[in-house]
């Protein structure tokens, strides 16, 4: 018998005594990996429901709004990058117009306003940079917190660079390795850059991790922060 999926293990944990479950039980007995996972499945099935306080309830709703909103922003962002990548690969499209990101600016603003519940957001002017913010899952008061601002080129071309700035919660620059878009970038004084073309080629990869000088791996995600548009 093949190793069992989490869902198969949960099904077994929910209705263990069915006669056809004997092979599953035997497999779990003999396979340490499935045994470990079955332990988690059992806990998942037996877990007591948790009554949220009013404060926790609000936090849950805000977090859900932020997550669903930021994912929409991410998708919109990469749709635009997709459009750009088509232009960049076309023979005549080596240089983009500065207005390439124009619609992105306004759409992101709408998404941000809707998701954050903060109302209208001031858009960056045409001469201002567009920045995206990423933040660690680690909390700001912890030692493995980081925040990265990624600045897109105003007039992207095949040779443009995307610059990245990584700081701690107090704004101090961090040294280490940023693992992003399948690239491992060494940060010197909190700064790194990446060719726009590499960015386009790896646009499907959403994972981002910062490795501190001490070797601590601190993953993170794109964030809907007010400064994202400034």
């Amino acid at each position: 018998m093949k190793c069992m999926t989490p869902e198969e293990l949960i099904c077994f944990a929910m209705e263990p005594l069915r006669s056809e479950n004997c092979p599953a039980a035997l497999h779990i007995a003999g396979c340490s990996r499935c045994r470990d996972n079955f332990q988690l499945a059992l806990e998942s099935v037996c877990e007591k429901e948790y009554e949220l306080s009013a404060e926790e309830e609000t936090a849950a709703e805000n977090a859900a709004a932020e997550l669903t909103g930021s994912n929409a922003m991410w998708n919109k962002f990469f749709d635009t990058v997709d459009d750009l990548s088509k232009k960049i690969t076309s023979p005549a499209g080596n240089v983009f117009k500065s207005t390439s990101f124009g619609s992105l600016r306004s759409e992101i603003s709408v998404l941000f306003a809707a998701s954050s519940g903060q109302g209208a957001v001031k858009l960056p002017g045409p001469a201002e940079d567009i920045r995206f913010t990423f933040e660690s899952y680690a909390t700001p008061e912890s030692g493995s917190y980081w925040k990265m601002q990624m600045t897109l080129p105003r007039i992207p071309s095949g040779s443009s660079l995307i610059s990245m700035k990584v700081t701690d919660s107090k704004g101090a620059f961090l040294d280490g390795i940023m693992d992003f878009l399948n690239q491992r970038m060494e940060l010197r004084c909190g700064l790194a850059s990446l060719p726009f073309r590499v960015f386009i080629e790896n646009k499907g990869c959403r994972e981002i991790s910062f490795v501190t000088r001490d070797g601590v791996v601190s993953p993170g995600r794109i964030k809907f922060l007010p400064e994202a548009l400034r």
Partner: protein
Amino acid sequence: METFDKETEMAFFQRLKAEDKEAWSVIFKRSVAPVLAGKTKNGVSYRQIAKDRDLNDVTVYGMLYDYMIGKGKLSNYGFRSPVVFWMRFYVKMLILEHCKRNDSPVSSEKVDSAVSENSNEELFTDGSRENWQSVETCFSKLWKENPMSAYVYLLRRYDMLRSKEISAMLDITPQNVDTIFHRADENMRQMLRREGGMAV
């Protein structure tokens, strides 16, 4: 225990897939919060494990969301169990995986033992193929005669759940669980002796 209705789960799943804010709020309430309020079998709180790694409730929730939506793992759900249970499994897995990636000032040993206790121990036997075949034969007989007895034997043999938890799950008293286990254990020993396998 949660009842499973495929139609309801399908509708809920579609809302999660469409990144519906309210549906994802339910996941926080029914999957993330119960796990964080719960403990591993060794009594370590999942919230404490997360906190030791600089995570809080909202960031754990973010990790789950990114795993399910960002990495597209939600599509692995097969409509055979309640989505909230399935998500709870991944909340635990993500917390424990996050721990494995980094050293932590506390809890490392406890976390390791919570997920891999006995992982090198062979069940019933010294691990030889012949003995394992005997075990398969005997365990199958036990299961055929009395599935509850065989299941309690499996859970207790590997210390997966305590008698009290097994009793709540199977709706019998903890004393009954112990009695069932001892009888099943004796049964297995006798059968293995008859089979010529190694008795535990």
